[in-house]
């Protein structure tokens, strides 16, 4: 082998190796983003604090949510979930969620859907509205400020990757209108931590996020609500998430 041949082989070797490294690099970054999307906080739309109810009783709330966003490769990642919440004494909510999200086939080995689970507590701290009612010149205004904490788990993001997430937020919502339905607008700034949950792989990371949306809430003992949510996680190369949530509150007869 001449010097020229040696140089050529070296160049070809480097050239063939370099894209591989770059691909691994890209796939690691993509996996990290997928991890962020894999649990309910990343896959499902933000939802409003529950409408206050009489303190006399605790209510069960059934919830269906569907979210849509694009994965790092541009593939659609729809997600669907169902949840059950307990509204304690007409205020704070404690709930669980289970659902599925489509896998990003261009990044992970296997296609199909992966399951996800979550638990969430939303605590109503202040529910009032006098001040905002004066500002908005609408006597029907009710505002709620609260705190929320959620945990998520996706056991099969890939065949070897589990995902855990923990998030905290400060939700705020304003509802107004005297007649059916009440209109509500809400925003939840927060922070989310995502890890591989003990499985090997990418180190843990955290990001800030903002969830917001609007919805229609029923009153007068009727209890079917619809929310249209939007979410943005502030991490490089992450997109937007949109979705719809429908809740039904079972009130005592």
């Amino acid at each position, binding site marked *: 082998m001449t010097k020229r041949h040696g140089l050529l082989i070296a160049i070809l070797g480097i050239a063939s190796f370099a894209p591989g490294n770059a691909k691994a690099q890209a796939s690691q970054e993509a996996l990290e983003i997928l991890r962020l999307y894999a649990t309910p906080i990343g896959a499902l739309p933000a939802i409003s604090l529950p409408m*206050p109810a*009489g*303190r*006399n009783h605790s209510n069960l709330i059934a919830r269906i949510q569907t979210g849509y966003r694009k994965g790092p490769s541009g593939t659609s990642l729809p997600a669907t979930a169902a949840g059950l919440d307990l509204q304690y004494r007409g205020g704070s909510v404690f709930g669980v969620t289970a659902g599925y999200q489509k896998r990003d086939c261009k990044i992970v080995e296997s296609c199909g859907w992966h399951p996800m689970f979550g638990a969430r507590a939303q605590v109503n701290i202040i529910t*009032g509205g006098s001040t905002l009612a004066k500002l908005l010149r609408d006597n*029907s205004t*009710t505002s709620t400020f609260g705190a929320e904490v959620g945990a998520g788990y996706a056991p099969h993001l890939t065949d070897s990757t589990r995902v855990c997430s923990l998030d905290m937020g400060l939700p705020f919502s304003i509802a107004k209108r005297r007649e059916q339905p009440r209109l509500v607008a809400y925003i939840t700034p927060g922070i989310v931590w995502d890890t591989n949950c003990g499985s090997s792989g990418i180190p843990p990371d955290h990001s800030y996020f903002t969830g917001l949306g609007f919805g229609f809430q029923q*009153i007068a003992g009727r209890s079917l609500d619809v929310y249209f949510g939007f979410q943005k996680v502030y991490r490089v190369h992450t997109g937007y998430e949109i979705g719809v949530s429908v809740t039904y509150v079972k*009130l005592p007869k």
Partner: protein
Amino acid sequence: MTFKPPRLRSIRWSAGIVALVSLSSLMACNKRPPLEHLVPSDIETTVFLIGDAGEQDPRNPSVVLDSLFAQASVAPDRSVIVYLGDNVYPDGIPEEGRAQYADARRRLSAEVNAVPRGARGIFVPGNHDWAGETAFGLYSIRLQGRMITNLAKGNNVQMLPENGCPGPVVVDAGRLRLIALDTQWWLHDFIVRDSLSNCINTIGEVTGALRQDVEQVADGRIVVVAGHHPLMTGGQHGGYCGLSGFFRRLSSLSQDILGGQNRTMRDSLASAFKKKKPLVYASGHDHNLQLMRGPEAQYLLVSGAGSSDKTECAVYLRESYYTSQHRAGFMRLDIMKGKGALLTSFEFLGSGARGYPFSRWLELR
């Protein structure tokens, strides 16, 4: 030639129709029948419900009491005015000779004078009437009962239940059965009976008597139970409204919905209403106007905005039909001959102008 059905378009149309139908059902609201459309001769009884009216401005006339008087004066013979407690702020009627006595008399006098001659006036006691929940409470209630009788000057105005008794006291007028309760009796931490008392002694007995009064009513009659404390509220006493609401939830005061004693009282009433729900449970206590769907009664009503200077916040609850905050006012229930009962709320802005006009048939005609 093959024809491809426009699937996408038809799906869109279907989705649009479903969305429209859903939205219209969501938007469907109770047709508001204006009170003015009622034929006066069709009205059998009109019940005026006003609470927490014991804080009138000593300089200016009360818009609320003036309006109440004017409306009841139209047909006093069929009007019943129910004051839902807290008739004298801050601490009920003190002993004669105390500096506060004359002012307490002024407050009560304004309310008694708002009952036109020929109408019936009923004063239900509230926690402030029990000397602001102090040991003098039982004696203050007796003083107020006597003072109302004196101020009425022979008119049909009285305190019910009187003498510090919990009730129930039944007032029948046509289709109306009004049951008056003194709910502070359940919550008072001091003496609630002595040798002058002549009433039921235990919560169980009161519950039993109330159950009987509610159940032994013929079909077609309208049962209204009136007590000072609400069974449900979106106001401060429900742990809502500002940061204080948050702390009230934690402190479990007996005057608040989440308090232990309050729960005993509410359970007692709920137990009495279990087999047959009254149409309305009317209360005051929170200084706003609310109408809610209730599990205990068909309608839970809070009408505690009788004093312009004491109006407070209220939030819309899931059960709410109507909520008015920071506005003085009262409610009236027109019971029609044969069938039908129309509730109308009167809220007054600071200028004295009428606020949002709310009315709802609680019993359809």
